[in-house]
């Protein structure tokens, strides 16, 4: 066997070193052993996965290959609608997001040969930065028990880190792919707004939502993006740009790539160990041929306000019914957030949308004239203990959660591609990560930078100590 990465698993299956059934059984064994602690799944579909694996095994025996992910086990955040399984969206309502249209991105992965192991835990309605969920259990960090896995795609991040599946789909409205990736020591990519269809995935904020992959390596994320990206008639916001082969340039190196390390906002008040880890990664990237310089950015606090206001207004609108008819079903912190959005005027909402356009145009023009990539931390403080979070009042909790996503949320407002990449560990044994941000639709460069770094640094070869 090569390794347990998505690329390695796909290669092993293609070379007939393992069968899709063996790949699924290997995952199920780990899930049965460890998911009582991790709580990555809301609904494990072991039978469905084995049935799909047997079908794919028969195809492989007959020389029929469905696609680049033939036989690869995957997990899906439980806001992706998939035929035959309910979609709770992290609420206590088993099929909160009922309907017939499947999640386009998930369907594309399955049509490419991927196997669904089931639906993954998440914070309620994708609101929340830590991965706690009163209905389905708090997702635990595979690297250090009792610590936050990050949210809202908490099961996606923790499940990849725990080796439950080779890759997962998450969604990101303010950091919800990059935060769990950063907390759990895996790669998480929020692509450019419009690169991946959101059709068939629960809406939190149609202006800010993105779907994307979480996986062990940048190569794995590139393989998933190859399949997930592209226009979709079911989502009018998808771009019609051609989808490149994101794996094609991965080994091209980063010589001459201009990396900007922000001198304002992104390191302000950030934990010293985290900041030092990102600056160390910057030096390592420089050693690999990149040109690293400090850069002063247009004030990100403005885009932070704009993004937050738009998200709250849209979330309150989309989820008005549950808030009005069954508020007791929602966790207090979710209720508070939905209530905040109801007080936003149409005037402020529309002005925020107009400002977003201007700020994005200026940011792209000014920043990317100087650099090709921005490098920042992902999270401002170490993954908190779950017990600390549980003891906070809803108000304190929400304020703290808002701060936790302050390094990721501006790039939802800007719509820019951003990737979270592991870059070491704290003294306590929790993962460190950096965020790299690129020009619109330049996911290829981010993946190449991440791949080059991973191959040199090798952090992805270390696995959590579950065993």
């Amino acid at each position, binding site marked *: 066997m090569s390794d347990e990465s998505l690329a390695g698993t796909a290669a092993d299956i293609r070379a007939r070193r393992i069968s899709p059934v063996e790949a699924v059984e290997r995952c199920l064994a780990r899930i049965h052993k460890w998911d009582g602690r991790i709580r990555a799944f809301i609904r494990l579909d072991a039978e469905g996965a084995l049935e799909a694996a047997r079908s794919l095994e028969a195809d492989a025996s007959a020389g029929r290959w469905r696609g680049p992910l033939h036989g690869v086990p995957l997990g899906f955040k439980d806001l992706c609608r998939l035929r035959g399984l309910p979609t709770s969206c992290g609420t206590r309502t088993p099929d909160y997001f009922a309907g017939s249209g499947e999640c386009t991105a998930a369907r594309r992965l399955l049509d490419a040969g991927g196997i669904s192991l089931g639906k993954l835990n998440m914070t309620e309605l994708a609101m929340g930065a830590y991965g706690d969920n009163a209905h389905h259990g708090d997702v635990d960090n595979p690297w250090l028990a009792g610590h936050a896995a990050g949210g809202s795609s908490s099961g996606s991040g923790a499940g990849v880190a725990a080796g439950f599946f080779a890759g997962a789909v998450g969604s990101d409205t303010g950091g919800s792919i990059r935060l769990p990736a950063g907390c759990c020591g895996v790669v998480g990519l929020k692509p450019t707004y419009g690169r991946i269809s959101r059709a068939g995935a629960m809406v939190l904020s149609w202006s800010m939502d993105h779907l994307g992959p979480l996986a062990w390596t940048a190569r794995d994320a590139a393989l998933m993006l190859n399949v997930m990206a592209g226009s979709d008639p079911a989502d009018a916001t998808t771009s019609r740009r051609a989808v490149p082969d994101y794996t094609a340039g991965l080994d091209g190196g980063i010589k001459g790539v201009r990396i900007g390390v922000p001198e304002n906002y992104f390191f302000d008040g950030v934990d010293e160990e985290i900041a030092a880890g990102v600056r160390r990664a910057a030096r390592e990237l420089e050693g690999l041929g990149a040109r690293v310089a400090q850069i002063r950015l247009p004030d990100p606090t403005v885009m932070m306000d*704009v993004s937050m*206001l738009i998200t709250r207004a849209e979330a309150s609108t989309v989820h008005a019914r549950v808030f009005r008819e069954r508020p007791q079903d929602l966790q207090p912190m979710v209720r*508070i957030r939905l209530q905040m959005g109801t007080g936003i005027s149409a005037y402020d909402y529309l002005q925020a949308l107009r400002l977003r356009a201007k700020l994005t145009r200026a940011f*792209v023009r000014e920043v990317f004239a100087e650099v090709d990539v921005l490098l920042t931390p992902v999270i401002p403080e170490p993954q908190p203990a779950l017990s600390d979070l549980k003891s906070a009042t809803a108000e304190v909790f929400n304020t703290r959660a808002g701060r936790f996503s302050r390094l990721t949320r501006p790039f939802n407002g800007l719509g820019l591609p951003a990737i979270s990449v592991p870059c070491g560990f704290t003294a306590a044994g929790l993962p460190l990560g950096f965020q790299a941000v690129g020009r619109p639709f330049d996911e290829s460069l981010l993946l190449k930078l991440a791949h080059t770094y991973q191959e040199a640094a090798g952090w992805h070869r270390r696995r959590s100590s579950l065993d």
Partner: protein
Amino acid sequence: MQPKEQQVAQASMADVIERLAGELTLAEEPSRFIAALEGEEAEPGNE
């Protein structure tokens, strides 16, 4: 009732947006966000 601290934060957010919105040209509109990402980034005039 919304928690007071968050009410204040939201009011401050709206103040920032109100102040900056005063600098927007008449032609600025939300769809120009997509244009910015797609590279159709001409500054809107006041026509």
